[in-house]
């Protein structure tokens, strides 16, 4: 072990290559994209709700990246179209997530726009789906004897409702729901938006073959 310098230089060069191709180049590509046309910046409530989303660690179970129809039936599940880089323009850090213990939430605002549903579900997921493994978030809610003015009362069936009084949502719960309701990605993506088109060529080739087969029949 006497040639430290060449070893260090080689190691750094390999690291620099990797950084260039995996971090700097994609960063420049994505940086040039800007927000997708149709994507609105977060409102104040939504931005606060996003912070709640981050602090609750929602991304450990929920991804925010629907796949294209060639890769997964996400669109058939109602999870929305495949996302593109511009859809995350206002997300820093993004909440892509890798686990799908729960459903993808990129388009939840279109699929389940109901504030009432979201609040019940956050307070006690088992009140709606007996088999749900999502944790309950009762600490985002408050037990009151009487709802005050402006309080949002949570709809709860008898087994989950308190014996007396009502459950009302704290500001954090309302903000989180506002964020979820705002998760709408129905607008058309930019045509040249960055995305994974890994299978488009194969799909096009297959289409050509079937068309040729049809034409020869």
């Amino acid at each position, binding site marked *: 072990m006497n040639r430290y310098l060449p070893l260090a230089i080689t190691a750094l060069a390999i690291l620099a290559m990797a950084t260039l191709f995996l971090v700097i180049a994609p960063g420049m590509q994505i940086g040039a994209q800007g927000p997708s046309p149709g994507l609105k910046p977060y409102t104040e409530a939504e931005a606060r709700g996003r912070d709640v989303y981050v602090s609750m660690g929602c991304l450990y179970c929920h991804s925010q990246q629907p796949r294209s*129809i060639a890769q997964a*039936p996400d*669109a*058939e*599940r*109602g999870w*929305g*179209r495949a996302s593109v880089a511009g859809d995350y323009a206002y997300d820093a850090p993004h909440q892509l997530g890798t686990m799908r213990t729960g459903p993808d939430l990129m*388009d939840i605002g*279109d*699929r*389940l*726009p*109901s*504030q*009432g*549903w979201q609040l*019940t579900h956050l307070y006690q997921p088992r*009140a*709606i*789906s*007996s088999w749900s493994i999502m944790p309950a978030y009762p600490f985002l809610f408050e037990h009151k004897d009487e709802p005050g003015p402006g309080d949002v009362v949570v*709809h*709860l*069936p*008898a087994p989950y*409702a308190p014996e007396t009084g009502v459950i009302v949502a704290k500001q954090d719960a309302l903000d989180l729901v506002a964020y979820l309701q705002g998760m709408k990605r*129905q607008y*058309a*993506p930019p*045509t*040249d938006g960055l*995305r994974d*088109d*890994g*299978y*488009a*060529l*194969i799909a*096009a080739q297959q289409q050509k073959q079937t068309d040729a087969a049809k034409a020869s029949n």
Partner: protein
Amino acid sequence: MMSDKMKQDPRLPDETFEPFEESRRIPLPVYWIAIALAIWGVIMLVETSHSTQVADKERAAQNAQDVTATAPVTAEPAAAQGHALFTANCATCHGDLGAGSTGAVPPLAKSDLVQAGGAEAVVRIALRGIDGPIAVNGVTYNGHMPNFASALDDKQLAAISSHVATSFAGAKDGIEPTKVAELRKADAGKDPWAGGAELASAITGLPAQPARPAPAPAMAATQSADVETLVKTGAGYIWACASCHGDKGQGMETTPRLAGLPAAYIAKQLHDFQQGTRFNDSMAYVAKALSEEQIQALAAHYAVMRAPSTARPSLKGDLARGEQIAREGDWSIGVPACFTCHGPSGFGVAPDFPALAAQHPAYTARQLAMWAGGSRHNSPLGLMAGIGKALNDVDRRAVADYLASLAPVPATPKTELAAIDASIPVSEGDAQ
């Protein structure tokens, strides 16, 4: 004993030994592998970038199509395009030659109304639909036509109307898309024409029209008040219907469009959710809290609702294939045409067959998958299970996307519903 253990093994290096390595040539196969990997990498890079170009081109084409049409349109001359669009959108009811159907659907060919009103009248009817008696060639029809405002754009409407006016009614001039855009703006959000009388008051020179019908009798006051609360604010521990299904019952994604579905179908589904014969946790939660009266009232509420279509093809399905399945079926895989049961243009046939037109593609495709997998199994005679199993996922997406591109169902007129309501006694028996 002790000395034996301490004795150094001569094969081991002593403690001062420093290991070293002499340089040796890298074996040739390692070079080959490195070169092969590099070549493979370059090929993959080129191929994926090609893939991106292909997909970009596809999307650009798709967007262009979205802008000009939802139905497949090519650069055909306007007349041929008008004919193709007429066949795709109007011919299921009005017939290929515009002859109509005696006693049910007024003719367009040699129609005195079209001759008098020209292409403009056709556009104005298509933009709002009709809900009331209308006289054509001296015969009065119980007019009941959907509006095509959400399904067809200005260019398409112009092409269809020009085709109808010039080929069927002998008019000299068609209509320009810009004029259609003006009419669309003027008629935006209005209810359907209340029969020929209202139409005649807006367009001069039309033949004599029957009088405007009396407004529909209001439903029982208590019922509608109850429904109003249920739909808008929810009651007890159930959420407002509109909070998911939309204030016009238009739905979104996997939340279905309810506007205009047959009342009996809606009631049956709610009963099935209640009894667990149809699975959906959220709907079971709601349905279990509903009383029989509320179910019937909600069914009636949504059956007469009218909402423009908010569904768009979004699953990248092949629309031509979808149209084939919907209109002709595919007997090579044992699938009958959707329209044989669900009615022409997928408008639904009360009481059992829901409307499919303008339903959200994610919902349609998902339900088809659920029929196939058996997690939905509440169709009459188990009809849908076989169809669901026969369609693969490409066909599911194709047919769901095609159905999403259609004009929304003309809702049951309130007058008719009131009559049905009075004649059928409410019973638990129709739950299955």
